[in-house]
């Protein structure tokens, strides 16, 4: 309870409670004004990540190249696994890169608030900055992976088509969706560390049902139609397929998948923003 003399002063001079969170619109505007801070924080992170290695940020390129090389060697050359897929190496690399991006970003966002504990305790800023910087850092890495994927696709005989121009759109939809997921997970992660123990299991299950290394259409042909639809339109499979649709002539998806891509992105980002905002007071 406010004592009467204090209440008078507060009202007369229009003082504002420091623990009050601004309305959502203003909160988002505050965050937008910190966009340069978000970028700089993401850049500092990438520098730090590779600061002790000789190749430095070159690892951002070398790591996906090495990964792609191994998949190419094992599945393309040695095993020759086809499973009804024409260009399996490109199919697999696209799946692995797209899913790894989602997996690493979500994992990182779970700890983005506890990890920045010192910053949160020293400076006042909209905490939305932290999961967004985490997502931005991962997107930068992902763009390099996608460049490697394009090389692999061309090397394995995919032609350059007009669909390649849609790749930025596919990337944008996936990034927006993932940013939304990160906001939800970041709030959970701020409350307790248990989520970091559970996440790997969820993510592994998700990986298996998202058609990272097999074709959902071929795999579910012996099950009921609805299982196939459910798997195909789960966001994991949707965004992987959109990437494949862009760079692989041998994979074409219906425009329903593109619509699903827009749907999941809009849904998760708007839900994530509101959900994260509601927890703002609990992050300090």
């Amino acid at each position, binding site marked *: *309870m*406010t*004592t009467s003399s*204090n209440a008078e*002063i*507060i009202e007369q*001079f*229009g*003082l*504002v*409670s*420091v*623990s009050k969170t601004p309305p959502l619109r203003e909160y988002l505007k505050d965050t937008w*004004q*910190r966009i*340069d*801070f978000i970028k*700089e*924080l993401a*850049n*500092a*992170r990438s*520098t*730090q990540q590779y*600061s002790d290695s000789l190749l430095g940020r070159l690892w951002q390129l070398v790591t996906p190249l090495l990964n792609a090389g191994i998949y190419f060697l094992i599945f393309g050359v040695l095993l020759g696994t086809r499973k009804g897929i024409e260009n399996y190496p490109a199919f697999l690399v696209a799946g692995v890169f797209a899913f790894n991006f989602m997996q690493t970003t979500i994992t990182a966002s779970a700890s983005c608030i506890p990890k920045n504990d*010192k*910053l*949160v*305790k*020293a*400076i*006042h*800023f909209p905490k939305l900055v932290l999961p967004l910087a985490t997502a931005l850092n991962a997107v930068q890495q992902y763009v390099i992976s996608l460049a490697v994927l394009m090389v692999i696709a061309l090397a394995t005989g995919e032609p350059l088509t007009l669909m390649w121009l849609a790749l930025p759109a596919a990337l944008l939809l996936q990034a927006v969706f993932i940013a939304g997921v990160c906001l939800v997970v970041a709030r959970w992660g701020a409350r307790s560390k248990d989520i970091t123990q559970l996440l790997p299991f969820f993510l592994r299950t998700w990986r298996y049902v998202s058609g990272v290394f097999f074709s959902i259409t071929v795999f579910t042909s012996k099950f009921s139609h609805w299982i196939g639809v459910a798997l195909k339109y789960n966001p994991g499979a949707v965004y992987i397929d959109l990437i494949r649709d862009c760079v692989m002539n041998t994979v074409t998806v219906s425009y329903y998948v593109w619509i699903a891509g827009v749907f999941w992105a809009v849904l998760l980002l708007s839900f994530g923003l509101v959900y994260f905002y509601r927890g703002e*007071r609990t992050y*300090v």
Partner: protein
Amino acid sequence: MSRPTVVIDDVHIHYRVVLGAGIGSAAGALRSMVSGSKPSQVVKKVHAVKGVSLVAYEGDIIGLVGRNGSGKSSLLRSIAGLQQPSQGDVYTSSRASLLGVGAALNKSITGNRNITLGGLAMGMTRSQIEELRPSIVEFAGIGEFIDMPMGTYSSGMQARLRFAIAAARQHEILLVDEALSTGDTEFRRRSQAKIREMASHAGTVFLVAHGHNMIREVCTRAVWMEKGQVVLQGNTQEVLDAYEADMEEQPKR
């Protein structure tokens, strides 16, 4: 009477401290789950600030004194909105800023990039930062090291850069915690002069310092805290004399 800028209204602050988490074994945790007894984890509540009320006006420079653990820093953080009071609230005329951006800086990037990062963290724009960059570099006095990763600096150089960045901006309500003025004697003198200069420009200043000389010199009022409560507040000389007398009587209260 001048305009009030900060109203601290019956603020209580509790910390939840988890004692012994992770000490018990998995088997023990399972046993307690099965038997339905309380888990071995002990959560202790620490009552750091116990009902502090205070009104600060424009032009006030308020010194907070008291022994370690008296709740000064917690109170300061609650004024900045960095610590949620468990009861009561703090009202301000504009966002109060705690002087210190050390936490925002990154040791693997250069001093120059840290100036950008720290400035952005404090809410400055890129053009404001560029305007202030030369004076920050000069005040930090670290020469060509400014283009080297901050991790390569000596601890004194790091402290100087941290302070120079934090002090670059003008604040209407400024909160200063003692730990800031580290470094050699010469730099300590310069940083104290800088704090005094900032205080003269700022509307209201809260200053936590162990060095009472600084408080005697710059503060218009002083508040003595003990175990989360205000023991005495008012004229700087009187409060400090009473506190120092008490310290001599009971060095550890």
